[in-house]
């Protein structure tokens, strides 16, 4: 994001003396230019001006010649000799351009240069060097490291140079101590990617006097319209767009201006290099530096061609199938038929040679070089969408494309070329052409019909009509009408983002100030059911219940991959077919979304165990993602139009199901060893209890259905896993994880787990209030019933049989003993129940309870159960 240098900003707007970067940041953020960072100098002084008193060349054994110098750095910093007199410092310098009589930049002991380079006195080449004469690179001023900085050549006037005294602060002199404000530009504010734009915003924020540099420059630019027939312009330009995007021609303005007789040996002035360097751009050559400088200053990306290498006409066209281009950065690109190209016409073959991708990056041919004497400046206006797509397609986000895709002022091209030409001529000699080419098909400026009342209707601001009109004029709009509170507003050419009345409301609101907007609280209409839905409440109940049960809630990332599939014994090819896959995953090894929570929750369990936490029992509530390989493709639809009902259905039809699940994993000890008793290790029963507690908390009546070992999914212990059912609806699984899973994840043996589909579960619940039964006050009859049953009869089945046989008189039933052992024999277990009978309307007689008991015994017998004596 762009850097703001107060020194540069002053070119366009009056800035108060002593403005700090902190205050500048505050002023700009008020109008919407947010501070990213205030960069402070990485340098620590003392760094001062030095006068080289003498420099004695001393050839070294390695062939190098170094200079043993004495440098006057002023009384404050000079050395003191044995007589107490101040004398110049002794400094070793290896730079070839070191010479007596020069004024140089001396970094003294205590100074710190970029890269944490600390300056200290050091013994070298047989002398004590008491400081260092610095090059540009050493000070972070640029790339130059061919020699030290000679201030004589550093852009000062003779008078200024004369005034430089040994010991003067060079940090201040070279702007090394200046901070820099980096700001964020939102995508709608392309014009703020320039000093011209930032200065205007500073004016909006503070009222400081602003001068738009483009106005004077445009006036100075040569006339291009209405010239006599046959007037020869700098080069013929043809825009030939056979594939416009959204019907918009890729280039609606191409302005080209020549500079003849340019001196390729000329140098970029230091002030310009300093400004470019501070803006984060490398100084390359005067011609290139000028185009970059103009872009930073005005916001118009430019390109400089070697005019002698180019053969007209220049053709702006779309790429043809199969064309390629190697860009300046050396990368080869396969071009797309949507890429807009700048081409020329060698040997009369129109548009046959590609010079670059328009507005994105130039190619290797046609660039200015160290030999270029005649320059062609390109200052064009390209379609935002076309540039954005090319930059995205070829992954070249250049400084130019960044500006074009946000929108460049379409009236700025002559001004930018004028400014560039002036700078080139001033610093590199030469003659700008008086007959630039201007192919201009920019349409008429649009007008917005704007009711002043919109400001109140949308922003809630009570702003009078004159203020509104004044603000719109100040941002550059031309405003007509207003008598009836309605305006015809023409936005300025640099604000392509202003298209709708609401855009103008924002301009008024932000310049009046958001702080001026009053504060009210809207009453929401109370209609239909208010409050949380039953599902939302149940989700909270489940979450609270598990925490109260002693488990800890966590959230894991839903990403899974081969490793997880392996650990959980999934057939990875099969599961991938029905899993959502990320096209650009972060971790390449987990590109899929989970179908169940347990594998990602297990990663969290594992992390805790590895950190030495014991008895980890975690749960998570979250979504899972069920890919349907046969789902229809989702259509692309435009915004700002309500899709038809069929289109809306098509959108949702292509999306995967994403039910909400709850899963838990319990490990280690369910009860810890402590002073109150002995430990008990977690097993299947802890997970089953969790499921029952969920069921009871939300009134679900979940039951378990234990499959045969061969039907148990591979993740689960074949003898210790059950399906959780809500009536006939499958809700999930509970049990112990398969020992292989525990082993793979380093989980303790018998780790237990459950996973329930809450979306499916909640759908089975009616939400109707519980219908209460009257409470009987007649006495109960309590009995114990112990049965022997074959081992493979499930306890739930026997209990179900007892409950059904007992009928309404059964008040309570509890299993109080499970026994297997030698006394019973092979394949048999004993289940003992305490039952309570009670009638609603009478005292049960012994005949009554005997009848119930007999019904129970008969029914149980059908399962092979026998009542024990």
């Amino acid at each position, binding site marked *: 994001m762009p850097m703001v240098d107060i020194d540069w900003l002053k070119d366009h707007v009056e800035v108060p003396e002593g403005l700090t970067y902190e205050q500048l940041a505050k002023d700009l953020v008020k109008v919407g230019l947010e501070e990213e960072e205030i960069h402070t100098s990485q340098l620590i002084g003392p760094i001062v001006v030095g006068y080289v008193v003498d420099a004695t060349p001393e050839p070294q054994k390695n062939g190098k010649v170094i200079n043993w110098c004495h440098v006057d750095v002023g009384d404050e910093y000079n050395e003191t000799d044995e007589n107490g007199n101040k004398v110049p410092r002794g400094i070793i310098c290896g730079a070839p351009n070191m010479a007596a009589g020069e004024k140089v930049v001396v970094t003294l002991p205590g100074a710190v240069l970029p890269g944490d380079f600390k300056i200290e006195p050091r013994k070298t080449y047989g002398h004590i060097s008491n400081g260092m004469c610095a090059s540009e690179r050493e000070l972070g001023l640029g790339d130059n490291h061919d020699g030290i900085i000679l201030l004589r050549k550093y852009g000062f006037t003779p008078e200024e140079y004369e005034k430089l005294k040994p010991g003067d602060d060079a940090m201040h002199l070279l702007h090394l101590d200046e901070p820099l404000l980096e700001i964020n530009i939102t995508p709608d504010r392309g014009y703020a990617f320039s000093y011209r734009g930032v200065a205007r915003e500073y004016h909006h924020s503070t009222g400081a006097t602003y001068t738009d540099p483009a106005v004077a420059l445009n006036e100075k630019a040569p006339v291009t319209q209405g010239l006599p027939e046959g007037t020869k312009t700098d080069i013929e330009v043809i825009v030939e767009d056979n594939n416009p995007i959204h019907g918009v021609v890729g280039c609606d303005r191409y302005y080209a201006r020549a500079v003849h007789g340019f001196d390729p040996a000329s140098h970029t002035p230091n002030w310009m290099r300093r400004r470019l360097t501070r803006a984060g751009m490398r100084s390359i050559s005067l011609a290139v530096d000028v185009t970059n400088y103009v872009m930073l200053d005005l916001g118009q990306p430019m390109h400089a061609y070697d005019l002698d290498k180019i053969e007209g006409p220049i053709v702006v066209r779309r790429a043809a199938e199969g064309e390629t281009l190697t860009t300046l950065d050396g990368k080869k690109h396969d071009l797309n038929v949507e890429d807009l190209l700048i081409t020329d016409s060698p040997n009369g073959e129109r548009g046959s040679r590609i010079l670059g991708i328009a507005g994105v990056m130039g190619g290797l041919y046609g660039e200015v070089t160290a030999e270029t004497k005649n320059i062609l400046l390109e200052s064009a206006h390209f379609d935002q969408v076309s540039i954005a797509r090319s930059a995205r397609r070829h992954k070249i986000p250049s400084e130019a494309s960044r500006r074009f895709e946000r929108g460049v002022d379409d009236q700025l091209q002559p001004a930018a070329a004028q400014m560039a030409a002036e700078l080139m001529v001033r610093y590199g000699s030469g003659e700008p052409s008086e007959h630039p080419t201007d192919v201009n098909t920019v349409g008429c400026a649009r007008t917005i019909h704007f009711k002043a009342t919109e400001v109140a209707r949308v*922003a809630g601001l009570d702003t009078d009509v004159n203020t509104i009109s004044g603000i719109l004029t100040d941002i550059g709009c031309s405003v007509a009408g207003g008598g009836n509170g309605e305006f015809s507003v023409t936005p300025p050419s640099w604000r392509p983002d202003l298209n709708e009345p*609401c855009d103008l*409301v924002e301009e008024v609101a932000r310049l009046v100030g958001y702080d001026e907007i009053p504060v009210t609280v809207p009453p*929401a209409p109370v209609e239909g059911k208010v409050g949380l839905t039953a599902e939302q409440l149940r989700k909270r109940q489940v979450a609270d219940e598990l925490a109260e049960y002693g488990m800890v809630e966590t959230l894991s990332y839903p990403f899974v991959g081969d490793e997880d599939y392996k650990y959980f014994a999934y057939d990875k090819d099969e599961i991938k077919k029905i899993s959502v896959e990320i096209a650009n995953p972060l971790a390449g090894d987990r590109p899929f979304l989970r179908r169940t929570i347990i594998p990602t929750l297990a990663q969290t369990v594992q992390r805790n165990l590895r950190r030495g936490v014991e008895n980890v029992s975690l749960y998570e509530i979250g979504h899972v993602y069920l890919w349907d390989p046969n789902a229809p*493709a989702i259509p692309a639809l435009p915004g700002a139009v309500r899709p038809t009902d069929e289109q809306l259905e098509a959108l949702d039809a292509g999306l995967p199901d*994403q039910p909400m699940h709850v899963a838990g994993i319990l490990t280690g000890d369910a009860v810890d060893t402590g002073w109150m008793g002995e430990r008990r290790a977690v097993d299947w029963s802890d997970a089953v209890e969790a499921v029952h507690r969920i069921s009871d908390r939300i009134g679900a009546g979940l039951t378990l259905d234990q499959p045969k070992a061969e039907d148990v999914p591979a993740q689960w212990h074949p003898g210790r896993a059950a399906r959780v059912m809500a009536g006939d609806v499958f809700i999930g699984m509970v049990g112990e994880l398969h020992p292989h899973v525990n082993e793979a994840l380093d989980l303790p043996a018998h780790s237990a787990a459950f996973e329930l589909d809450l979306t499916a579960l909640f759908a089975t619940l009616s939400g109707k209030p519980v219908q209460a039964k009257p409470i009987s006050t007649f006495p109960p009859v309590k009995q114990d019933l112990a049965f022997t049953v074959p081992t493979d009869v499930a306890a739930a089945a026997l209990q179900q049989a007892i409950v059904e046989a007992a009928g309404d008189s059964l008040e309570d039933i509890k299993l109080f003993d499970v026994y297997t052992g030698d006394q019973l024999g092979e394949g048999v277990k004993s289940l003992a129940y305490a039952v309570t009978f009670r009638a609603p309307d009478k005292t049960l007689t012994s005949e009554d309870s005997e009848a119930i008991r007999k019904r129970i015994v008969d029914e149980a017998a059908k399962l092979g159960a026998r009542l024990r004596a």
Partner: protein
Amino acid sequence: MAEGAVFDAQAVTDAVAEGIAKIENASSMEELKAIKTQYAGAESAMTQASKAIGALPKDQKKEAGQIMGRLRADFGRAYGVKEQQVKAEEEARALAAETVDMTLPVNRKPLGARHPLPKLMEDVEDFFVSMGWQISDGPEVETEWYDFDALNFGPDHPARQMQDTFYVKGNQAKDAAGFVGSNMVLRTQTSSDQVRGLLTRGVPLYIACPGRVFRTDELDATHTPVFHQVEALAVDKHLTMADLKGVLDKLAVAMFGPEAKTRLRPSYFPFTEPSAELDLWFPDKKGGAGWLEWGGCGMVNPNVLKSAGLDPEVYTGFAFGVGVERTLLLRHDINDMHDLVEGDVRFSEQFVMGE
């Protein structure tokens, strides 16, 4: 005593006096009960003397009866007083013997812990519900139309490229910009629920959408690729930016206490116009109260209303979104995002059931 025993007033008086003296020296209930049997039981002098009254001449019976009545009362009173005393002593001894160290750690049914993030989302939901709003929840794997196009992020909108989107592989179709894709993403913002809400619930609409969102940021101290937002959307016939400011201030107070307030700074989002960055005045900020970035907001862009088939000349609305992680980090002085996302039980256990 043998049949035909003689009533001897002196003897029975002496016996009772002896019994009372023994009562007074007794120190346990066992002892007391033995004394009672000995001096007031069936074989005792007192019982025998009472029986002997029947054999006395008629004129002596009355006096003997009075003597016996007094003796019984004396004995009974002495016994009762002592019984109470001994019982109290015995109870005190028993209780002393049962004394425990009440400060021993007792944790038979330890509580687990809720994660503070969903708890905070519940708090935010409760805030909106208290204002009469509804809570909505949309899909995390979302169509690009709901996540972008309907929100005025056209296919070529620069902001669409700035969202660091996770794209989903799928049945390939060309998107509107001609790039081949599934038109499906992991939603980058809970704003994707805006147009869903408008289309399914209609207007007037006051909804909050808390949920999970995704961006392709690597996990570090301040970023996480999976995070949470709460989006709020109100669309009605009379809403202005003033209403937006009011709801924001109320939410700030609900989350950060009575001194909290909010400030808006001009900004840009495709789905709002005017748009603003939302700053929070955070009284408990480290190093002193101050402003902190909290979220984004604005008035619903007319194009969003049009995506839902509403007339922007009739309806206006406001929307805002705040990051749940950011709210938590601020509120609880959490310095590292890792703590929030790694699921270390030691982190959640600090919050137990609240936050």
